[in-house]
């Protein structure tokens, strides 16, 4: 299965796509990083919104995986800045918030996806990432 995914990536993505993970929970960030790397993506991870924006100003990414509750600068602030700076990188929100209002806010900022981490197997996230970047 894992081998199959890797083979798929190698076959279909001559140039590895870059994914930025902005997630303050280091164990979760590491798990995502591991899974996505295994799927053939180049992954960079930062632990708060500020660092994420700083990196986005220097490099471009194919996708951002964004947590919402974070120190220094939370995910909503990141979305606001992305909009202000007209950075069009697609965003997938991975959060443990689940209130309708949070969902709507991220949608208004154009987030492509909203996953509740505890309710979503990591494999589902990886599959969705592959689908989005196909």
């Amino acid at each position, binding site marked *: *299965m*894992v081998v199959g995914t890797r083979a798929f990536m190698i076959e279909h993505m001559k140039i590895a796509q870059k994914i930025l993970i902005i997630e303050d*929970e280091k*164990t*979760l960030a590491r*798990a995502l990083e*591991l*899974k996505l790397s*295994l799927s053939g993506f180049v992954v960079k991870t930062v632990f708060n919104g500020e660092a994420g924006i700083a990196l986005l100003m220097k490099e471009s990414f194919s996708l951002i995986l964004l947590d919402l*509750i974070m120190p220094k600068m939370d995910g909503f602030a990141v979305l606001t800045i992305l909009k202000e700076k007209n950075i069009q990188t697609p965003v997938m929100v991975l959060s*443990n*918030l*689940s*209130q*309708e*209002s*949070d969902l709507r806010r991220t949608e208004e900022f154009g987030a492509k996806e909203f996953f*509740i*981490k*505890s*309710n979503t*197997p*990591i*494999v589902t996230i990886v599959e969705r990432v592959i689908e989005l970047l196909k």
Partner: protein
Amino acid sequence: MSTSNDKKTIATSASIARKLEVLAQEKETARQKLVVTAKKLAATAKENESIRRKLVETAKQLAVTAKEKEVARRKLVVTAKRLAVTAEEKESTRRKLVVTAKELKRLYGTLEKKVLRRTKDLEHIRSRNEAILTSIGDGLVVVDKEGKISYINKSFEEMLGWKTQEIIGKSMVEVVPREDLHGVEVSFKERILTQVLAGQKFVADLTNPFYYIRKDKSRFPASSIVAPVILNKKIVGAVEVFRDITKEKGIDKAKTEFVSLASHQLRTPLSTVNWYSEMLLTGDVGEISAEQKMYLEEIYKGNQRMVDLVNTLLDVSRIELGTFDGESKPTNIVGLVESVVDEQKLQVAEKKLKISCIFAVNIPLIQVDPKLLRMVIQNLLSNSIKYTPERGRIEVALLLDDKKNVIFKITDTGYGIPKNQYDKIFTKLFRADNVIGKDTEGTGLGLYIAKSIVEQSGGKLWFESEENKGSTFYASLQIGKPKKNGVPANGT
């Protein structure tokens, strides 16, 4: 003797003759005198006659005059009588007038007193009303039909920073701008005040909060009620009462933040356990033995249950706090029930249960939050599945009652609810003791959630049950607009 006698007799006769002669003469004289007198008398008589005649004439005239006088007198008498009557009447009138005048004077005095008293009363009422208006904790503004401010109270001044003398006679809409929740200024046409004055709206509701902009350009969240002032069927102005809802918003925010924080704190470690056990299970860090896999699956399953429990608890807090921010909309309950049944068909199949659905024709769309209604049906159905032994039957039905409520009915041939626990079955975290041993997965929250949701949307949830025969749960749902979300299920 004889001669002597004769002589004597002759002498005597002569004397007598003479005497007679004298007498005759005297008589003649007298007669003549009488003639003269008679003549004189005749003359006098004539004169007298003439006088008499004159007198008669005069008498006649006098008689006429007398008559006239009599007439006149009589008339005078009549007149006098009349005058007397009139005088009497006048007197009576005068007396009456005197009485009336006195009465009037008295009344005037009383009236004056009354007017004074009333004026005082009115002044008192006026100042009391003014004091009431002024002291209303909510902002109050009265405008004329052009929308020009004619009165503001103290709270208005305090909340918006304007003084009465600065804005009286000015347009409310222009002086005090309004912004919607996104900070966009509400245009003149869209202002509720404008619409109320134009007769387009009668009472604006409180459910649309907005921001009022103060004199110093700062703003505060507010909600208001605007109503027209109607005089002789014409709108002559409007009254607006508004309040600062910073506190209410603060409470709402605090509630939402609590749920967010709880979500975040509880779910983050669960996510870690989930993902790492998942990665171990999928061999991302190397092959694992069958036994290790079994253990890991236990960890994973246990964690899944924890995730479900946390999700349910979060739902409970959101229901209790009234922060479920879903939306009521016309919902096809038939479709919804079908999809829930479909969703749980695996569990139905696992226990070899027979499930049947009966839907009355013409079930209308009902105004409800579909997510919440789904939760109710999911809970009731999963209970029936959970608490019905293998090969049992479940019957799901949608009916219409005589009051045109939609009734969701679910009947099972399950364990039933012990009679002595009927009253506790909807209590949070309660589980009937006849099922605790049979099923370990229940949280005791499902029925509590279902009942809270149904009741918050104006419906009812109840059941009939007999131990070891089965239970029937009913949820009656109003078709029309339910109450707004946000009423906590209980006092917590």
